[in-house]
């Protein structure tokens, strides 16, 4: 099952039409994801997308590849189970800020310290899109929504800072208004051996009237354009993670290539993927177990 020599956008075309609103930032992410697959010559059958529930989480249906649209907030543990069972597949989680920073926050906290080779794209529109506009964990303080008619009183989650604190080995932020740059980040994340977070600024043109394309465009700048910025320096990354206001960095905040992946440390996976292993184990081996009990 070798990768075809060339892969085109057409090869990645799904029969299903996106249901997203015209202009939705999720289109940029879809585009970037496909570009990344092409860049890495990853054919559809060698990739699987796990998503949660939300507008953006419908993405798996819109790219020709394997997909699993799961439960709100739950793609992260699902993907880990899959990855451990089939570790020669490229496993990508793509879900909303409500999924992984909201209801599924605990799974997110714990995948980061395990470092499985999973790429995690979070569609961070700072709002709950599919449920019609309630505030999200990343909504800016004071954000007005149906459930916060007088503005939120909670401080937003800072995904970059938390990822750094939780031990993520690849921490990046993209902007769906720049799908080329985003594609590059996603490709890098997919190539990274270990867990890669790509938080994506994704304008929701319907519900989030604060953090619009223009709002982002006026603010974002690329870390790679920052002279001397070295993504191997955890403390520098920490400082950049707190930059928010006039200037907001996108790009690769931090990477650490030294940490072993979860999969590498599991003896059962040394030979071949779990799903390829014969079952049941040899009867003689099993019979041997009885000796524990006699």
């Amino acid at each position: 099952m070798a990768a075809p020599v060339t892969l085109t956008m057409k090869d990645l075309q799904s029969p299903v039409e996106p249901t997203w609103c015209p202009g939705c930032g999720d289109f940029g992410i879809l585009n970037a994801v496909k570009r990344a697959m092409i860049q890495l010559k990853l054919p559809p059958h060698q990739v699987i997308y796990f998503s949660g529930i939300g507008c953006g989480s419908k993405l798996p249906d819109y790219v020709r590849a394997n997909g699993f649209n799961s439960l709100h907030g739950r793609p992260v543990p699902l993907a880990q189970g899959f990855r451990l069972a089939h570790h020669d597949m490229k496993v990508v989680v793509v879900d909303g800020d409500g999924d992984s920073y909201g209801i599924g926050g605990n799974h997110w906290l714990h995948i980061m310290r395990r470092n499985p080779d999973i790429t995690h794209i979070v569609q961070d529109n700072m709002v709950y899109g599919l449920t019609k506009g309630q505030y999200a964990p990343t909504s800016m303080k004071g954000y007005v929504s149906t459930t916060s008619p007088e503005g939120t009183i909670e401080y937003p989650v800072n995904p970059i800072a938390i990822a750094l604190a939780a031990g993520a080995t690849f921490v990046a932020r993209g902007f769906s208004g720049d799908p080329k740059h985003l594609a590059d980040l996603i490709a890098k994340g997919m190539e990274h051996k270990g867990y890669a977070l790509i938080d994506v600024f994704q304008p929701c043109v319907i519900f989030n009237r604060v953090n619009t394309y223009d709002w982002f465009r006026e603010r974002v700048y690329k870390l790679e354009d920052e002279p001397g910025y070295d993504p191997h320096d955890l403390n520098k990354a920490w400082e950049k993670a707190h930059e928010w206001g006039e200037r907001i960095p996108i790009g690769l905040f931090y990477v650490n290539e030294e940490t072993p992946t979860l999969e590498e440390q599991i003896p059962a996976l040394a030979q071949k993927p779990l799903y390829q292993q014969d079952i049941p184990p040899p009867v003689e081996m099993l019979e041997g177990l009885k000796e524990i009990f006699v």
Partner: protein
Amino acid sequence: MVKNNCTIKLGGEAGQGVESSGMGFAKAIARAGLYIFGVQDYMSRIRGGHNWYQIRVHTRPLYAHETSVHLLLAFDERTVHDHSAELVKGGGVLYDDGLKVDQSSLSAMDLIPMPMPLLKIAEEVGGNKLMMNTAAVAAAAGICEFDLSYVEQVIRDNFGRRKGSEIADRNIRVANHAYEEARKRYAHLFEWKLEPIPGAPRRMVINGNQALGLGTLAAGCKMVSGYPMTPASTLLEFLAGQARKFGLVVRQTEDEISGILHCIGAAHAGVRAMSCTSGGGFSLMVESLSLAGSTETPVVIVLAQRPGPATGLPTRTGQEDLLFALHAGHGEFPRAVLAPGTIEQCFYHMARAFNIAEKYQMPVIVMTDNFLANSIRSVEKEAFDFAAIARSIDRGALILPHEEDKVTQATAEGYRRYELTENGISLRIPPGHPNAVYSVAGEEHTPEGFIDWEETAHNRNLMMNKRMKKLTLCAEEDMGVYEFYGPEDAETTLLCWGSSYGPVREAVDVLNSNGMRVNMLHFVDIHPLHWDAVGEVLDRCHTVVAVEGNFSAQFSRWLTMNTGRRPDAKITRFDGRPLNPDFIAAELHKALIRV
């Protein structure tokens, strides 16, 4: 003199080695060719409090414990205080002579006080007071005139390998000393004796969780993930210990939600997967259970019950989660529920659960409880037939992506994960092959697996019927395991499920030997069932009395729901203690009066 028919009870604080001593003694007795049944009781604390371990011995296979005790081995004063009343007349109370025990009051109860210088022997002969447990067990052996070499073997197994034979040797010296001393002092006073059965086969001494573990391994399960919770933890731990050898992935996850989702993920990749938990953890899994139902992913969940609500009685037993397990999860979807009753059934039905899960592409819940998980029995080695399980493995309509030729052939005309079929079962090709690239969804989906974003009524009806009709087939082809025990023409039938098997079966023997005509009707298979057939089975029964370890007689309610038939009476126990034959017999008399 009574030979090979008695109960020995050990009691003391957590941390005093009650369980390990009891387990060791039980193993020694079993090695002598006797049958044992061991049950324990412990508290939700790591040191202190009061734990006990009770070993019943017989020459025939045992299925439950009895309430009367013949020899009490007290590691502390509280044990004497709490358990003397359980001793039969002539029973012995063995304890270190340093403990303050009122001998005269024991004598007044017709019990034999058996103080022994256990600590002294441990210190003087073994040079270590920790060897007191060895002394105690050996002394008990001496009192029963049990051949000490069996105890010595167990000592060698436990100490011989680990820290060099010196410790083993010293323990054995302690054992011999205590044995002789106790025999000399008390053997002639004590009526109950243990005598090896020559030529008896070596039997396993094994508990329910271990049997489930063996069943899991035998079935080829390769992914085990879960979060520790009593009484399921020891199953997770047993499998963690076998992971390297058997090439398993065993994961302790951040919570039970993640535990079950790891399994669903792995099962989606084509790997047999299992998660185990107790009621509280199962509560957290139910949203994902519904996802497994919707996506038709075969996963197995062991639900080892303990009494609730909430944290309830965390170290006790109960059968309180049946109706919950049957209806857990939002929406309607197929599932199977099995409740093995014995240790052998734990082994076989655990393995069978994986077959049912894969054949019908649905979640299967295997229900046990603290009693079944932790009580030990001696079981013939042959009773665990690994070869038969290997032969029975049925993965259903599964083709794995690396079975390239098969995939190519099966997908010649395309592939649809949720193809509509006569019986509702669709071909399952896990992701990985270029001919079977697809997406699945927990949202209502098309036969291709895409979200049916129009949520059409037509597709919905097709998909609901597709999924639900798998239950009909399953009930017919694979379910219906129940067992009658006792006289066919019984006047009273004790209806039970799951772990009540042993106590009810033994109660049947007791009751019939007392002149009643009682039998047992035990169900392993709870759902789905062919209810007309069950109704016919029930029609063969006269007075039906439900016997259950919960407040509301849940299985009997399930039965009524499905057949309209109500039991004539109910015996329930919900105090966290296992059912036992004496309790059932006593309650039955009361229940029959009420009928």
